[in-house]
């Protein structure tokens, strides 16, 4: 069983659309994260949630809204998609915030045309 799973794996869409990426972890972890990998391959933190509570919001446009319905899920909703949103988005989870190892999903490649 995949520990951290993201869907979809690939997402191609037009500018201006709204889309969601889902993330689920079956590790029983308390903390979940979203990272964005830019065109230069740097992964940069976007959000983290601990026990469904927002901990980090790293100067991300408010078109991006994370939603955590429960500890096992952290979905990323993006409104009014722009060309610059094209990237690979990685979800991760850790046992607790601050000190634990983060476990990553396989990434979602978003292409905005």
């Amino acid at each position, binding site marked *: 069983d995949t520990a951290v799973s993201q869907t979809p794996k690939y997402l191609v869409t037009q500018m201006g659309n709204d889309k969601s990426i889902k993330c689920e972890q079956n590790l029983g972890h308390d903390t979940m994260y979203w990272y964005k990998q830019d065109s230069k391959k740097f992964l940069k933190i976007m959000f*983290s949630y601990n026990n469904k509570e927002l901990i980090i919001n*790293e100067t991300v446009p408010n078109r991006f809204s994370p939603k955590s319905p429960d500890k096992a899920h952290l979905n990323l909703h993006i409104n009014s998609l722009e060309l610059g949103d094209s990237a690979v988005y990685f979800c991760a989870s850790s046992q607790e915030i601050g*000190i634990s190892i983060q476990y990553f*999903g396989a990434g979602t490649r978003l292409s905005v045309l």
Partner: protein
Amino acid sequence: AQSVSQHNHHVILSEAASLELGCNYSYGGTVNLFWYVQYPGQHLQLLLKYFSGDPLVKGIKGFEAEFIKSKFSFNLRKPSVQWSDTAEYFCAVRPGSSNTGKLIFGQGTTLQVKP
């Protein structure tokens, strides 16, 4: 600003060659250090980590890394690579003062091992 540099962006080796991938970070305090690997089509997985203690850490699949505090470095090594080591390798740092768990990543190194 805190940053992580991986000097080699693309490395091509033949099987059985030795590997060393450089990683330097800019942060003066206590750090936790990580190397992650992403095999084609798979998730990022942890190769090894350093939190404290012996600066030479061993990870999975024969990889090791050495933390040299004076050089702000955490280079990854493997004495003899295999074709199956072809992957993307990411170095990451977590400042010890961080209570958010935020990881700061380098831009990755693509390793291609020729059979």
